[in-house]
């Protein structure tokens, strides 16, 4: 039994700390907002130009001028502020954001991340991901452990174009948790999803890793 999307989001939420400014990517990372512990003050940044993202609006109360980086309608909080894209990425590049949680296509044992392009196939673009992984203090990637085809995604070296080299601190997959520490120390498995065995995760991982359960 692997972790569900919500269980992965809940595990990622355990990386949050009181007072953190946090940027959440699209997909499973967005779900992390549902698991902020009660009483913990966390401010969500949206890189299109907002601090203090509120919940989705009630039906009929959507505001076309108020969206998140995934282009979804959102609401503001009493503590919110708005700013330009240049200011937004100044706070990202300048190291003011404590934690970035984002999705991935491939991660390497050296802490490289690929999540923006499949040559000849997917033409979407990197958006703000390259700036986030270059500038945010701690980068957590949340992704499925293997491709739909069963091919591993935690590799010795990424085969897809990189989003950043040596940028990933922690990887959470549906099978377990790995400390990567930007490739500065050996890749280490620190938690297994409930019902997942070490043999299973070894069989589904190309990268070499230490076990520190």
């Amino acid at each position, binding site marked *: 039994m692997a972790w569900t999307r919500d269980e992965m989001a809940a595990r990622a939420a355990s990386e949050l700390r009181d007072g953190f400014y946090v940027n959440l990517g699209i997909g499973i990372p967005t779900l992390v907002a549902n698991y902020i512990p009660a009483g913990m003050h966390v401010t969500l940044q*949206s*890189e*299109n*130009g*907002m601090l203090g993202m509120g*919940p*989705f*609006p*009630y*039906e009929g*109360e*959507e*505001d*076309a*001028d*108020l*969206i*998140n*980086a*995934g*282009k*979804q*309608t*959102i609401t*503001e909080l009493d503590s919110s502020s*708005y*700013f*330009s*894209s*240049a200011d*937004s*990425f*100044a706070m*990202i*590049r300048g190291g003011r954001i404590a934690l970035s949680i984002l999705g991935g296509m491939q991660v390497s044992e050296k802490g*490289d991340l690929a999540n923006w*392009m499949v040559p*000849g196939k997917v*033409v*979407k*673009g*990197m*958006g*703000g*991901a*390259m*700036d986030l992984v*270059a*500038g945010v203090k701690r980068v957590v990637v949340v992704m499925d452990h293997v491709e739909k085809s069963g091919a591993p995604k935690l590799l010795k070296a990424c085969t897809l*174009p*990189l*989003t*950043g*080299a*040596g940028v990933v601190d922690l990887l959470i997959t549906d099978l377990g948790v790995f400390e990567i520490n930007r490739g500065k120390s050996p890749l280490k498995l620190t938690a297994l999803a409930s019902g997942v065995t070490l043999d299973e995760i070894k069989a589904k991982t190309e990268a070499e890793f230490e076990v520190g359960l």
Partner: protein
Amino acid sequence: MAGKTQKDAAEALAGVLFDGMTIMAGGFGLCGIPENLIAAIRETGVKNLTVVSNNCGIDGFGLGVLLESGQIKKMISSYVGENKLFEKLYLSGELELEFNPQGTLAERIRAGGAGIPAFFTKTGVGTLVAEGKETREFDGELYVMERGLTADLAIVKAHTGDAEGNLVYRKTARNFNPMMATAGKVTIAEIEHLVPIGSLDKDNIHTPGIYVDRIFQGASFEKRIERVTTRPREEKASA
């Protein structure tokens, strides 16, 4: 001195468009886009445009309409994943594309408008984005050089403005508009509300009028929402 205020988008664009020009267009997704100006540019038929914009609209709205009409030769963007026609034109070689990381794009425009020809950033080091660009080490870390960016024309959208060209944006519709306003050889602002001079709060003007050459109140704003996302209303407490 001729005033900056124009009747509509067509009058505001008179005499500034030419084939092969570079146009910056404000907005993030469909939020804060100069929709009246985009529609008017389509009407003029100007072509071979290089367009600098974070996204390229969606099929049938925003900059997507200039793709449909074949007026765009090249896009400089960070994310174009909302647009099927874009992907088709790009993969068939009919459209050129330069991807910039979103923060690098914002800073290139900010720098261009501020008279700064280049800067160094950590973003993109060790990726395709840094290929062919100068890198340099500062304090033990590697950075890549990126160039400032300007345009023949910047088209921006604000919520409120006055005849001096002072602009105030609203919520996340600000995004790329303030930097683009500074980086156009000519800058045209379309606004929802033209207010009398003196009625804006002078301490809270986001774009000072020096950057704005022409301004007009848009005839209508559709302000389409890309992803309407809502939550259910809480159940009323049972009696």
